């Protein structure tokens, strides 16, 4: 379908050689031949991923000045700084496919680009910072470990680097939530409240069911994705449910149960209407997130201009 949309008919011999390379487990590098649909899908996925890292700074960044201790503040600053860095790794990977970073950022600011649905929910209490680390980063790591196997070299390398750093995000969040879950009644209540608000968005962020994910077969064939959305979601649920229950928290899903035959945790029905509403721009804080990004971009304009002017003057002075 994607290839037809692009109106590109690939040379069958080249396509066969390309798919044989992927079959052998080789990485495709910038400069290698690739089908147009492969390039276009990668640009779509990588740029959305980059935007998610950049917008992902906002929900938690708001809590930096209100961290309850210096240690928590240092951790949160480092985490948000990592997300800025991860956005840069990913924009770099997209640029190796011949796209311009300025164009990608403009698409985000103008509301033409997608980013992860989960960042369109508000962070109402400090416990949300812990719950985002444990669940949202936990889900992201599951997805990114899969993407680290990606056939496109630059994306795979960005994922390996991000996973190595993001494990810290997951652990600091889990540590924080375990502390509150074992703390005073009000701390426990705060942790439980955060879980109730972040559980379903965390399941949704791993994407539509496989039956509603039309790109998946082609992406799997070309090893852009090596697992489906539902497979990654299952890994996430199996990892996190027992740990949340051990912590004495209650998962807000009355249908949640273990399937005796497979040993997997089975979650209840996901509210996909909510998911699509958020993806289409009608989540709780979509408008607020984009407004914050636009303001940051405009506030940084003078810095971009000043550094460019300084460099131009220095270059002119050096014969």
């Amino acid at each position, binding site marked *: 379908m994607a290839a037809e949309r692009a109106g590109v008919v690939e040379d069958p011999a080249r396509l066969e050689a390309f798919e044989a390379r992927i079959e052998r487990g*080789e*990485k495709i*590098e*910038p*400069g*290698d031949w690739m089908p147009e649909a492969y390039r276009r899908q990668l640009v779509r996925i990588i740029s959305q991923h980059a935007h998610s890292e950049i917008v992902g700074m906002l929900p938690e960044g708001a809590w930096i000045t209100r961290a*309850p*201790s210096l*240690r*928590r503040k*240092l*951790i949160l600053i*480092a*985490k948000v*700084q*990592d997300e800025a*860095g991860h956005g*840069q*790794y990913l924009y*770099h990977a997209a*640029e190796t496919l011949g796209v*311009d*970073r*300025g164009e990608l950022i*403009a698409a985000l600011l103008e509301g033409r680009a997608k980013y992860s649905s989960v960042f369109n929910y508000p962070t109402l209490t400090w416990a949300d910072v812990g719950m985002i680390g444990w669940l949202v980063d936990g889900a992201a790591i599951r997805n990114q470990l899969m993407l*680290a*196997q990606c056939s496109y*070299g*630059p994306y*795979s390398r*960005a994922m*390996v*680097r991000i996973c*190595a*750093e993001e*494990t*810290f995000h*997951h*652990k*600091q969040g*889990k*540590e924080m939530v*375990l*502390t509150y*879950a*074992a*703390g005073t009644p009000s701390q426990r209540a705060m942790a439980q409240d955060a879980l109730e608000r972040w559980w379903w968005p965390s399941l949704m962020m791993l994407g539509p069911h496989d039956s509603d994910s039309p790109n998946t077969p082609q992406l799997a064939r070309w090893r852009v994705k090596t697992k489906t959305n539902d497979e990654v979601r299952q890994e996430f649920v199996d990892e996190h449910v027992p*740990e949340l229950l*051990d*912590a*004495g928290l209650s998962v807000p899903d009355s249908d949640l149960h273990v399937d005796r035959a497979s040993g997997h945790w089975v979650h209840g029905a996901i509210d996909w209407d909510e998911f699509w509403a958020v993806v289409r721009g009608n989540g709780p804080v979509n408008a607020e997130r984009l407004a914050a990004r636009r303001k940051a971009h405009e506030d940084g*304009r003078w810095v*971009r*201009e000043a*550094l*460019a002017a*300084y*460099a*131009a003057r220095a*270059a002119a002075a050096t014969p």
Partner: protein
Amino acid sequence: MTAHSDARGDTQWPRWEVFKQDTEGSPHRAVGSVHAADAEHALLMARSVYARRPAAVSLWVAPSESVYARTAEQLQEGTVVADAPATTEPARRYLAFRKTSHRRAMTFVDFAGEVSAAGPDAAVAAARRAFPEPPALAWWVVPAAAVTASPEAEAEAWFEPAKGKTYKQQAEYGTLAAGRRRKGQTR
């Protein structure tokens, strides 16, 4: 290679490739790119983006447009005129980088060594002769004059602070499970 104003009137800094050396004696490896106004700025951006954690002892940056890249597939297809520089430009020094494995990694090409050649195609050919083993999957050649290194005398100031920030390393948190938290983590 200067900043330009794009169609929206937004200033765009040029792109620089970044090479990080993890330890004395290991090669500089391509880690990614940054956008920056000049070389000094590019090095600072490179440190913030690619050296927030240990280990790093040195960074190199080079304008992306100065990098000449050839994959094994391109070389096999003969897109390179080996040993036949297209111009009569004089020989100059190039740094040669290569990728030799399809293994999962967070870096791309590694510094192999220097070659002297008249033009980038000749530099790739010279690098293939100088560093034949193991066979490379991709080559980068960069004019030595285009590369700027982080100041050696200031290496400690540049890279040591990251070592003290242990809270951003996952090992700091050990194995976490309900009821088995480590002492001192109740803050």
